[in-house]
């Protein structure tokens, strides 16, 4: 079998890391960081997800094909969310746009 056998201590180490991150995310929620509370919570969740995917699900040792499929899934989920939000969150911007100048508020958001 070509499947990689992960050493026991790696599994235990990952599990401990996951528990620590859970404690961390709960703790951080009790500190007022403003909008960064959400950012921190999501960032920690993403790290936890990566640990599970890479080690528990063996993706670190898997073929490129599996990785491409996972990335494709994440990409399409991102498309769903982004383009829906593109409508829902910009609906009330500048309700009386004039010509291509309507794009201005969109562009200036980045500066």
């Amino acid at each position, binding site marked *: 079998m070509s499947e990689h056998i992960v050493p026991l201590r790696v599994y235990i180490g990952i599990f401990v890391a996951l528990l620590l991150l859970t404690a961390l995310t709960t703790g951080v929620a009790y500190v007022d960081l403003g909008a960064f509370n959400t950012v921190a919570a999501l960032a920690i969740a993403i790290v936890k997800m990566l640990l599970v995917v890479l080690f528990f699900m063996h993706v670190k040792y898997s073929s490129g094909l599996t990785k491409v499929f996972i990335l494709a899934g994440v990409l399409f989920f991102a498309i769903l969310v982004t383009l829906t939000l593109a409508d829902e969150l910009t609906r*009330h911007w*500048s*309700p*009386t*746009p*004039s*010509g*291509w100048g*309507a794009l201005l508020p969109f562009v200036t958001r980045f500066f």
Partner: protein
Amino acid sequence: MIGLAKFGSTFLSSVIQAPQLRPEAASSIAEGVDHLYFVLTFITLFFTIAIFSTIFFFMVKYRRRAENEVPPDTEENLPLELAWTIIPTLICAGLFLWASSLYFENSRPPSASTEIFVIGKQWMWHIQHPEGVREINELHVPEGVPVKLTMTSEDVIHDFYIPAFRVKKDVVPGRYSSLWFQATKAGTYHLFCAQYCGADHAEMLGWVYVMSPADYETWLASGTPSETMEKTGEKIFNKLGCSSCHQPDGTGRGPSLVGDYGKEEDLKSGEKRLVDEAFIRQAIINPNSVVLKNYPPIMPTFRGQINEEQVLQLIAYVKSLASEERNSNGK
């Protein structure tokens, strides 16, 4: 290519002028939309015919002459591939820019528009003029004057569609949509509901009467005399106790509404929002989502306590407060 397209569209438009094939064009934007439509029709016919005749030509010229015939192998031709990838891309880009510019122009009501309010309801259109005149399934508008419609629905999604004006907009419950047009030709035109809305969807139609401005004034005056929308709005405003917090001099617990309409307000969330119809509606129905920066979030919601028509009347009143201020400043 552009010359050809121009010629084609002129030719086509002269053919399509036949009354059976072209709907009446009775608004300021209709000609522009039709022009784009003709060019698109030309492009469609051009490519369909070109491809079909090429295929037909090949079919005849290269028909199988012997059962065991083996034709020469296909040769790859990269320049050709690139050409028919890039040329359609350019055509698409051109069409996109043209269509979008037109759309921008058409989506912006001139600032001095007459405003009329529309409420869709299974299966009829309620229309109210600011002067207080109400109509059902009929819309009277003056010719040559920009008219802005502010629309909402009491139940399901409808769609306000006047083919002769080339305008259409969904009428969505729970929010305002707006639409504007400037009629250019006196006459009577169809008004359709273009979003399926239930059993009598096909009967949810009406007529738009375009009248000369003088006739329109006469018509308005002859209508059943009733209160103006802002007057009714003021009564509701006092009855619901809005005035106890929103005092004109700003001493109440809420912001003064005098001169508020049309201003930009800072929200608690850090956003800046223009105070327009949609904003006022949101403030009445879901006050929490638009708390102003220096005010506490104490306003209760009026969802379910007043209907869409009353919301519109309140808005008319708030808007009248804005013009009052402008008038007093002027003096």
